[in-house]
């Protein structure tokens, strides 16, 4: 019998009006169960993954993916930058190394406003102020701000605080760096930062960029190994290390990953329960159509045809449930992102809105797993149908 005719038989057995109300209800419930299980898994992965990705993107928004530093917090300067640039030029995937100077300062904007903020000097173009800081200082692009460096603070004998380094700068742009902490800081040119902090030639850290597609962990290991060879191998008294920037927050990502695994296991168990329910629906459908199978065998349907019909019934139920779950999760994620954004407290969670990112690979894996389990649970009714003689099936009422 051709495959399309076997499909027709399986389809009509599953969606038959002649099925009893109980069977139809159990079938509908089992499909709904599978759909909900699949949707729950996909939606969970979408928002957990979205949260992790947003945090990682925010952390690397103003930080290069690789961080080079002196262990123990030692001093760095332009000479170190030159050495590291020279070493890194031989590492595939690393596109450049820049020096950074990052220090706290007091910033004021509109009359009556003042705030403490981290000032970062790097190779940025112009002065970009974080959106939260801009709001606090009531400034926008084109406005003037004043930055008072802590490097110029002196306390007089009378106990007065004297600040002699106050720089007036024009805001070039207001930026959303993704993370609340960074949105309360400002970024400007390295040279300007050195002027503000009276730190000519000084650097607090070095950052390296990698090309698209390069794994930062791999690149950092290569650079770290080259740095070690050059510094320690060369007999220098100090040396430098390189780590991926996100490794600074490794514990956070590990905790998020663990939470994600735990919730995935719980939801996967719920899906398994739904699939067991589907197994009982398949058994009931097989019982309802036992005599039909006997008639088909009397007409010459081969044992493999009987087996395939049973498997196709499972595929239909599971496939429908899986597809419905995928569709539901996709629509839900889209709707939440567009119309019902989940607001978060940025001071606690770093980001203001929880983004949902449809996890294509996870969705396909979950669907494939569901279909495989459906095939597995279809085997029992199939074997059961084959274990009976056609005569026995024909006598079944």
């Amino acid at each position, binding site marked *: *019998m*051709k495959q399309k*005719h076997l499909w027709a038989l399986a389809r*009509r*057995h599953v969606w*038959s*009006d*002649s099925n009893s109300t109980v069977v139809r209800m159990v079938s509908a419930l089992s499909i709904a169960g599978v759909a909900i299980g699949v949707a729950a898994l996909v939606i969970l992965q979408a928002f957990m993954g979205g949260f992790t990705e947003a945090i990682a993107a925010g952390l690397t928004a103003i930080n290069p993916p690789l961080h080079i530093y002196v262990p123990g917090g030692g001093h760095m300067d332009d000479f170190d930058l030159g050495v590291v640039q020279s070493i890194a030029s031989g590492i595939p995937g690393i596109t450049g190394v820049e020096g950074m100077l990052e220090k706290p300062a007091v910033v004021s904007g509109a009359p009556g406003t003042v705030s403490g903020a981290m000032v970062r000097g790097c190779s940025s173009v112009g002065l970009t102020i974080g959106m939260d800081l801009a709001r606090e200082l009531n400034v926008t692009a084109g406005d003037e701000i004043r930055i008072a460096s802590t490097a110029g603070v002196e306390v007089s004998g009378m106990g007065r605080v004297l600040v002699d380094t106050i720089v007036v700068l024009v805001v070039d742009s207001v930026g959303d760096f993704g993370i609340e902490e960074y949105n309360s800081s400002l970024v400007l040119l390295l040279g300007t930062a050195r002027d503000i902090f009276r730190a000519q030639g000084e650097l607090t850290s070095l950052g390296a960029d990698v090309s698209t597609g390069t794994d930062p962990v791999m690149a950092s290991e290569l650079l770290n190994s080259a740095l070690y060879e050059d510094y320690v191998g060369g007999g220098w008294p100090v040396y430098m290390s390189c780590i991926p920037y996100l490794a600074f927050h490794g514990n956070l990502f590990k905790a998020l990953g663990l939470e994600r695994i735990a919730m995935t296991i719980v939801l996967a168990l719920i899906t398994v329960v739904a699939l067991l329910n589907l197994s009982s629906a398949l058994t009931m459908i097989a019982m309802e159509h036992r*005599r*039909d199978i*006997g*008639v*088909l*065998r*009397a*007409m*010459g*349907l*081969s*044992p*493999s*045809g009987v087996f395939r019909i049973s498997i196709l019934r499972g595929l239909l139920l599971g496939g429908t449930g899986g597809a419905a779950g995928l569709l539901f999760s996709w629509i839900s994620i889209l709707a939440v992102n567009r119309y019902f954004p989940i607001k978060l407290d940025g001071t606690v969670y770093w980001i203001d809105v929880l983004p949902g990112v449809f996890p294509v690979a996870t969705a396909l894996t979950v669907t494939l797993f569901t279909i495989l389990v459906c095939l597995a649970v279809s085997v029992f009714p199939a074997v059961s149908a084959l274990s009976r*003689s*056609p*005569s*026995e099936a*024909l006598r079944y009422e």
Partner: protein
Amino acid sequence: MSKEIVLSAQNVYCSYGSDDVSIKVLKGADIAIRIGEVVAVMGPSGSGKSTLLHALGLLERPEKGKVFICGEDGWAMNGRKRAELRNRKIGFVFQFHHLLEEFTLKENVMMPCLIAGESSEEAAGKAERLLERVGIIHRASHFPSRVSGGERQRAAIARAIVMKPDIVLADEPTGNLDTVTSAEIEKLIMELAEEGRRSFLLATHSEDLASAVHRKVFLSSGILNESE
């Protein structure tokens, strides 16, 4: 074995139940049916007529004995070959028609052809011609639940002969019908047997049907006899 013989059974034994409580239904049944011959198997209810037909139709494996369909030992081959033999050489008509409820009468008649791997168009052509022949072409697109008992049995007969089988096994084909409809079905069976030189083995209680067939056999105490 004569080439004229389409079905023969030798020393067939069948029983029901477990080893502890076993009811022996057939105790060495023998039968041979020639091409174009219409044979009625008669016997009281519970005598084993249906079991005999199922054993002869390769639906139930006998405990002992052999069943030959057109010279081939039906129980000596594997399941796939046996299914193929049922599809091409044997037609079945059941007392309660056993049409597939989810399919129209035409689709029911097409089913053996589809099982044989024929295309939908080819199968539909054959089904339409046969539904025309048995007088229910106007019901072709109706589902079994929407037609009368007589029309269902006509569709079941059309389904049984659509593959032009050598033998049709009919289990009480008129057992569930009123007198007028029974007479119509009996007439149809005899006409179809005549037209195609097709053999029929009918299990029946109907004296009317039995009187029209070529030969009668009686099933009694698990053995087939030519006389009561």
